[in-house]
């Protein structure tokens, strides 16, 4: 297991608890499933440690509206790589709700999906391989393609915008 973020392997600094688990001490950084966050919101926000929320497929990221500033991390679970709901959650969180914290893909996270995840706003990836392998995979995946048709919130220039820019430059040159 290794987590890659910002072109490096990072430490796991978060404890994820399930619905029924006891909460760790108040100083620990804690991630809870969305349902538990909704139930125990005030208690959880009152703890000392960092707080994050885990979204499973079927959850509504909209439920976190109003609390995003208090969350340092949101993990989105891809139980199987074929379950693509998390891509929509990523875009909704980043592009619509303006989430600025860490957005981590967990679960069945494979090399061939990482670029898509990145385009949908994810900035960290929890892979089931050792650190060096994980870093190599993420690096390779992120530079596999260089042309993008869809505008997302990832800041990459689309083919459409590059075409426009080129056209403008040529018109300027001609005049």
């Amino acid at each position, binding site marked *: 297991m290794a987590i890659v973020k910002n072109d490096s392997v990072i430490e796991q600094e978060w404890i994820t608890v399930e619905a029924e688990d006891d909460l760790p001490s108040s100083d620990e950084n804690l991630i809870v499933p969305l349902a538990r966050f909704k139930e125990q919101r005030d208690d959880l926000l009152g703890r000392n440690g960092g707080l994050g929320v885990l979204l499973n497929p079927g959850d509504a990221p909209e439920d976190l509206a109003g609390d995003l500033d208090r969350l340092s991390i949101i993990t989105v679970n891809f139980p199987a790589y*074929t379950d693509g709901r998390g891509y929509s959650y990523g875009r909704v969180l980043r592009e619509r709700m303006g989430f600025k914290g860490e957005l981590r893909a967990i679960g069945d996270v494979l090399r061939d999906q990482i670029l*898509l995840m990145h*385009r949908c706003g994810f900035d960290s990836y929890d892979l089931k391989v050792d650190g060096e392998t994980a870093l190599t995979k993420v690096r390779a995946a992120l530079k596999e393609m260089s*042309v993008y*048709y*869809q505008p*997302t919130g990832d800041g990459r220039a689309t083919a*459409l915008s590059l075409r426009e820019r080129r056209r403008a430059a040529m018109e300027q040159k001609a005049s």
Partner: protein
Amino acid sequence: MYRYDDFDRQLVQERTEQFREQVKRRLSGDITEEQFRPLRLMNGVYLQLHAYMLRVAVPYGTLRCDQLRELGGIARKYDKGYGHFTTRQNIQYNWPKLDEIPDALLDLANVEMHAIQTSGNCIRNTTTDQYAGAAADEIEDPRPYCELIRQWSTFHPEFTYLPRKFKIAVTGSPNDRAAVKVHDIGLRMHYNDAGETGFEVIVGGGLGRTPFVGKTVRDFIGKNDLFSYLEAILRVYNRFGRRDNKYKARIKILVHELGVEEVQRLVEEEWAQIKDGSLKVGDAEIARYIEQFAPPAFEALSDDDADFERHKSESRAFSNWVRSNVIEHKQPGYAIANVSLKPIGGIPGDATDTQMELVADLSEKYSFGDVRVTHEQNLVLPHVKKADLFAVWTALEGAGLGTANLGYVTDIIACPGLDYCALATARSIPLSQRISERFGDLDRQHDIGELKIKISGCINACGHHHVGHIGILGLDKRGKEFYQITLGGDASQDASIGKIVGAGFSEAEVVDAIESLVTKYIDIRDGGERFIDTYRRVGMDPFKEVLYGDR
């Protein structure tokens, strides 16, 4: 016609290289077949009964002559000298070797083609009217919008792992030749009250084991807003479509279970939040795409051509072909020539390498280098001068491509069936061949008139049997093939799903059963009524009786 620019070219080249690496990893044993599967599927490579199959995308069914020539070349180089045109306006090769597929993809990339998203649970190749830009009844050429949809949907990062595959069809004509009502999204161009053109948006149509005619979620969406609206529909589907059961995962089930009003509410709510975002496409941008599909340099001609008329009166075979296969063009003096891939007794949709090359040559010489693939598995030369039709027909006839049966009983849609497909429960091709032979006589076909027979070799309905005037579904009963007949299906603007007549027939009986239905129709039809019109007038009973008597 649309030409790739450097961005499009680079994207396809990068993809080709990526797949070459993936094949290398597979062949060296680095990855298992199971791990390789999703990767190959995203590149149109299926594993069939006997071999890998490569499905190549023909975006909105439009080909340039050099592209069709290359498709012929690929058939010769990597296959057994033929290819199979599909109901999704694509082409499939049935016998490529895995280690050679990257080379085939490179050859395709060199003519601006690829196999991207011809499989997998993603947005598939967008289909449209095969007569786009040529049809006399068209409001506007739909292809500029299809090309914009192609780009928007290619490697869409959010919509590559949808609950299930997703198909979009567009028609620019009120006479729907793209079957838009039986697609996940159907777009029908029309005018709003202000006289602007835009699209009716139909959602949740589909065939397969649970056929539905799509329902309208929005009567009119302006062109600038089309792409944000599509994105809204796809996001709703991606988030809320069922994933617990593969057979209930298409958007048609979501529409069926939630009701169209609720789906509409979700889509409109989503759309309200993104409609003014970066997916809004400006008029100038749309105009650039319309320019790409500008009409070719037609000559100003009289609509009547004396030589054409003379050839018709001199050659009965030619005039028969004109009668069935030639369709009115919007430009005076020109015509749309359909090339039938349904020779009597042949395999529907198959074309050999040299046939493809011949049609490519004819299109270059006579049709501004433009060729179309139809969802009914034929080819089209869309812009032929009437004066050239005789020369075109003579050349086609010499290559076995001059069959005069467009829309007739032998113009059968059939899926590959158990001869190739790993999912099939029965054979489709031999049955279509037998029906074709039974009704091969041209005078008889003329007499029967328009009659669409569609054959699927399993419940997945790739042969569109639900929307055949006569549909045939091949099933397996204790190791024996048998065939269920449906009547009254229609894929046009009057779309309807066919109804099962009764118990199925054995392979030996089914051709006779079809003949009985046709004979009954001829007995009871009113004047120039088509089979489907008669069925709609008299209903199922007279046909049922002729098949089963009192049974």
